[in-house]
């Protein structure tokens, strides 16, 4: 299967590979995986608690070229976005940007899941997580 030029570019020159200290309260960590292919993706965001803006993002993915490219692209998109804007990133935008073929769509889903997991982890640390079940109980 042929990869698009953008996938190859991210694969050969992945952006923002690395990690932050996951105990840092301003860091949110998302670790997700795909059982079918054994891929694992770790994505971290560093958020300014005063502005709620993502100041930096890093990732490390073990998987195919599309999974690496999806998470690399995600970290590029995350920097400078607010938490709310970050949660709006859809896997379909990643598919479009990278020209992913149908068999590789799950890689973009994984990246979207990783973004959400990282942000939820940050919110949990900050105690600002929306807990629908509690809100329901208090209503």
């Amino acid at each position, binding site marked *: 299967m042929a990869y698009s030029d953008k996938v190859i570019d991210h694969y050969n020159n992945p952006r923002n590979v690395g990690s932050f200290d996951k105990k840092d309260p301003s860091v949110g960590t998302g670790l997700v995986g795909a*059982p079918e292919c054994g891929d694992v993706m770790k994505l971290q965001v560093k958020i300014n608690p005063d502005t709620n803006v993502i100041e930096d993002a890093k990732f490390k993915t073990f998987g195919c070229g599309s999974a690496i490219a999806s998470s690399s692209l995600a970290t590029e998109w995350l920097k400078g976005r607010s938490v709310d804007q970050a949660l709006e990133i859809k896997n379909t935008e990643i598919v479009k940007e990278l020209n992913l073929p149908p068999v590789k769509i799950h890689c973009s889903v994984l990246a979207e899941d990783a973004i959400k997991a990282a942000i939820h982890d940050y919110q949990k640390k900050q105690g600002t997580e929306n807990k629908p079940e509690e809100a329901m109980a208090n209503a």
Partner: protein
Amino acid sequence: MEQTLERGRCPNCGAVASSHFCSDCKRIQPVRSNVDYFEFLELPRLLAIDEAALEKTFYSLSRALHPDYFMGASDEERQASLARSSILNDAYRTLRDPIRRVQYLLKLEGYKEAEKRAPADLLEEVFELNMQIEELKNAKKAGDEQEAQEARESLEEALTGLKQRLAGIDDTIFSLFSQWDAAIAAENGSGKTVLDDISELLSNRSYIRSLIREIEEEF
């Protein structure tokens, strides 16, 4: 359990046919949509199956459906024989292997593999071991034999543990087979929880199998 039988009218005599052959005129039947491998091999949708009996069914159907017997038959019948023989092989390959059998059953029951979430500690472990595999790759690339040897030793230990866990997961899955069969016999709807458990175990099993494969490739 209600099964959706592969039903239709026999193109030859018009009788209602729900098997490989018409019960009235005995002609081979064309393949109709939604082939269910269990049904195709004349099995109920159970998991702890008699593998010797399955093999016998396979051989007897192989003979009955074999294209050699339909050389002089009509185009439709020759087509039907070819199509049924090919499905028969796929069905047998799928159902004789217990893991593939249960994966197939989950698919029939509407489970999707991608929907499951692995436990966080398993993902951490998979990630960690992938880091170690990468270290080994890098050490080999750099020609650092001592570093590579250290990485190899640590991965070797991990590999032994992973293999044991894989065997343990398989045993647990197989022990759930009879629970599913009992739930179907009891018709109390408790089969769903059994399948949920199996589905989760299979997902964990996939990660462990991938790791084993990747580590072995580096040795």
